[in-house]
């Protein structure tokens, strides 16, 4: 009987995805996207300005940049920086969050530190990292990581404060040990908090990485935007902005959403 339950549940999920895509969601996305494009073309057509290129000029620029390999190179470099800063910040931030959520004394002691770093403007961290460590790759990634860690720590701390004592006792009785307890008892309870931190975090890291690149890196999307600004080449700025949006959307749909669906399988 329970097997039936399971099959039915899986079936429902399967139909849900295909069904929603066919019955309108995709259509609506398409309609919405095309009307935005049309509005853009219309305004550009009316203005007839080099500083407000239409979709055709921008896609032409996009194509030349893509064909020369420039676009791929800069987007790839930015992506690597985002990934490095994101994973390091998630790992360290989660560890700090769990520690503070579990140990009350440490939480009280470090609370002020956390508030200090939370309110430190991103630009300050970036400038200080470049001043202290030079215009290096390490300084760039470090600056982004330091900006991100306190946000992750605060979110994960909330989760660690509300861990179930019942399940911790169960794990103790059945001798789960540190690793098994972390993997099967603690992390699943923190999953919604870590997911929230990851989502908010990715959005933040993207934006800070661009600023870091603009201020002190020879390549990356941020650098290209800066060059576009210097040359008043708005087509280039928009082409890179669109490439950036496409990559972020792709990661959202192809990576984040499937992970979330998998982690939430057990919920009723």
């Amino acid at each position, binding site marked *: *009987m*329970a*097997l039936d*339950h*399971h099959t039915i*549940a899986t079936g429902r999920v399967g139909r849900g995805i295909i069904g929603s895509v066919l019955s309108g969601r995709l259509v609506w996305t398409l309609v919405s996207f095309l009307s935005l494009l049309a509005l853009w073309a219309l305004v550009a057509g009316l203005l007839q300005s080099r500083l407000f290129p239409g979709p055709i000029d921008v896609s032409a620029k996009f194509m030349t940049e893509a064909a020369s390999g420039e676009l791929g190179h800069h987007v790839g470099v930015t992506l690597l920086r985002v990934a490095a800063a994101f994973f390091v910040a998630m790992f360290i931030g989660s560890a700090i969050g769990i520690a503070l959520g579990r140990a009350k004394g440490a939480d009280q002691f470090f609370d002020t530190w956390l508030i200090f770093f939370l309110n430190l403007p991103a630009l300050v961290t970036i400038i200080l990292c470049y001043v202290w460590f030079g215009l290096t790759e390490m300084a760039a990634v470090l600056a982004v990581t330091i900006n991100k860690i306190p946000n992750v720590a605060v979110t994960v701390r909330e989760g660690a404060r509300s861990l179930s004592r*019942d*399940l911790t*006792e*169960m794990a*103790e*009785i*059945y*001798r*789960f040990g540190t690793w*098994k307890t972390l993997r*099967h*008892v603690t992390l*699943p309870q923190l*999953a919604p908090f870590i997911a929230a931190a990851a989502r908010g975090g990715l959005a933040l890291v993207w934006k800070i990485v661009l600023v870091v690149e603009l201020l002190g890196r020879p390549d990356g999307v941020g650098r290209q935007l800066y060059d576009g600004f210097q040359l008043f080449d708005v087509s280039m700025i928009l082409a890179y902005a669109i490439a950036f949006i496409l990559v972020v959307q792709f990661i959202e749909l192809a990576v984040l959403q499937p992970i979330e669906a998998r982690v939430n*399988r*057990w*919920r*009723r």
Partner: protein
Amino acid sequence: MKNGQQAIRVTVARKAFPPVADRPEQLVLSGVDLAVEEGSFVVLTGPSGCGKSTLLNIVAGLDKDYSGKLEFGHRDARLSFMFQTPRLLPWRTVEQNIRYVLDDDDADADAKVAAILERVGLSASANAYPERLSLGMQRRAALARAFVVEPDILLMDEPFVSLDDPSADSLRALLIELWNRRPTTVLFVTHDRIEAVMLATRLVRLGGTPAGIVQDSEVKLSPTERLDREKVLAARLRLFENA
């Protein structure tokens, strides 16, 4: 299995809950000395809130804030604990919940898990998540988990409360069957006197404030008599006459 040997010896000179807000310190247990013989099924009973569960948590090692002593007959005795609520991991399947209490390098894990699932009647639900099952089925999974580690000592804290009578009866029958197949030392807390008489080979009653042991009697019923309602009711009257 050697009878006559002590499996658990717990003495609690004093157990108090620290003061909370405006409530003063609460003395719960005092002068408790309980020795449990290996292979016996000891039922701890007494009015609700008297400290039965507290004593059980002390034996489990979950509560270390007391003055007294805890010893086990086995060095490194393997414990199982069936709690009042099933305490299954909701994000893991029934099968995973049972597998994870076994050692990672246990080569027979697959066979053990399959066998215990079969015995408690959950083979068809092995891949279901606990919250999709009824409370009775979740309790079966918790019972399977408690037995799969082949414990030296099995602790149970009112494991069959808030079930309807038929479900509770079938779980009790299952417990008796599992226990007969693999006898182990059991310390079982309940306030249900009929359940106490049905299961116990020895009945220990706590009472008073702070609580101490007020009664300690053997229950001499044969396995068939335990399933006979008349016999159980008669034994209950006898055992609880001065309660």
